[in-house]
């Protein structure tokens, strides 16, 4: 009993698998957001993206 308290909640293999898949999905979503912001910046600004005073 005391040993159980010490270990807290132990995830089952299924819970670990689902947590891993959720983590991967979040990572992919964040990477997609980076790409989206990059694309929006480039296609909104067009050639002006390189147009700045030195």
């Amino acid at each position, binding site marked *: 009993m005391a040993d159980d*308290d010490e270990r*807290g*909640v132990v995830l089952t293999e*299924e819970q670990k698998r689902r947590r891993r898949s*959720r983590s991967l999905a979040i990572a992919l979503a964040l990477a997609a957001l980076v790409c989206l912001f990059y694309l*929006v910046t480039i296609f909104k600004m067009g050639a002006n993206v390189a147009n700045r005073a030195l």
Partner: protein
Amino acid sequence: MSLIQEDRLERAAIPALPGPSLAGVEDYLALLKPRVMSLVVVTALTGIVAAPHGIHPVLAAISLLCIAIGAGASGALNMWWDADIDAVMARTANRPVPSGRVTPGEALGFGATLSAGSVLMLGLTANWLAAGLLAFTIFFYVVIYTMWLKRWTPQNIVIGGLAGAMPPMVGWAAATGSVSLASAVLVAIIFMWTPPHFWALALVKSDDYRRAGVPMLPCVAGPDETRRQILLYAIALAPLGVAPAFIGLGGPAYLAVSVGVGLVFVQRAWVVWRVREGDAARRAAMGLFGFSLLHLFALFFTLLAEKALGVAALPDLLGGWM
């Protein structure tokens, strides 16, 4: 300190923390109501493509993604609020929240985050009119329809249908920065299509709705009145479906398809009105429900196909005759 250390969740430290989540990625995708999203994608894309002057294809694609995610987010918020109703209806009992795979708080957080993110992203990508219309659509679906109308009036899906009808106008606004009569006609088609579509299903699932306490028309006014209203809406929808051919949106193919599917829709609504007993009545209602999906996709796909193939709109083809 992290709440999660290796494979351990420190529940004792935070008693309110629920148990380890069993939600998989597929459960979060289910929260977005992917089948509704597919309808939103087709209709919003039509709004973008049919608009007189477009935006860059990449920006159009990102705008479409934002509209689809906004629609999905409102679906997640709907599932958060309606979990009690969903739990007692056979059709929805296995949804992620009532089945316990996703907690209500997770659904709320997921839906709210995606709502805000999609509106902001659409504003940055296209323009703030489109973003405002998307925000209005989400607000209308979640607050006006889900929280208010759905449990209060049998006209719930009539008025609430405006939220589902808005995507073509949001798409049009994303492309042009404005709205127009043509985009309003596309909205009106979906608005008029929604009641017969849902009432055909409600005729078959009325016991489910009655058990859940949702005042759908068959539960409140009875199946006969529902059948009468389905027929009236179908008759009103038929000419409205043809209208894009005469306002510069559709060409000859659209005219032919809209007349054809409009007449079949009325014929099927007539069968639903006439056949009122037994399994034949159930088959007629489900037949109309299935055909209504085909009907809407046919109209919008034809508009898309004509634009893709460069077919001129009917008034242009007929020149001075119209």
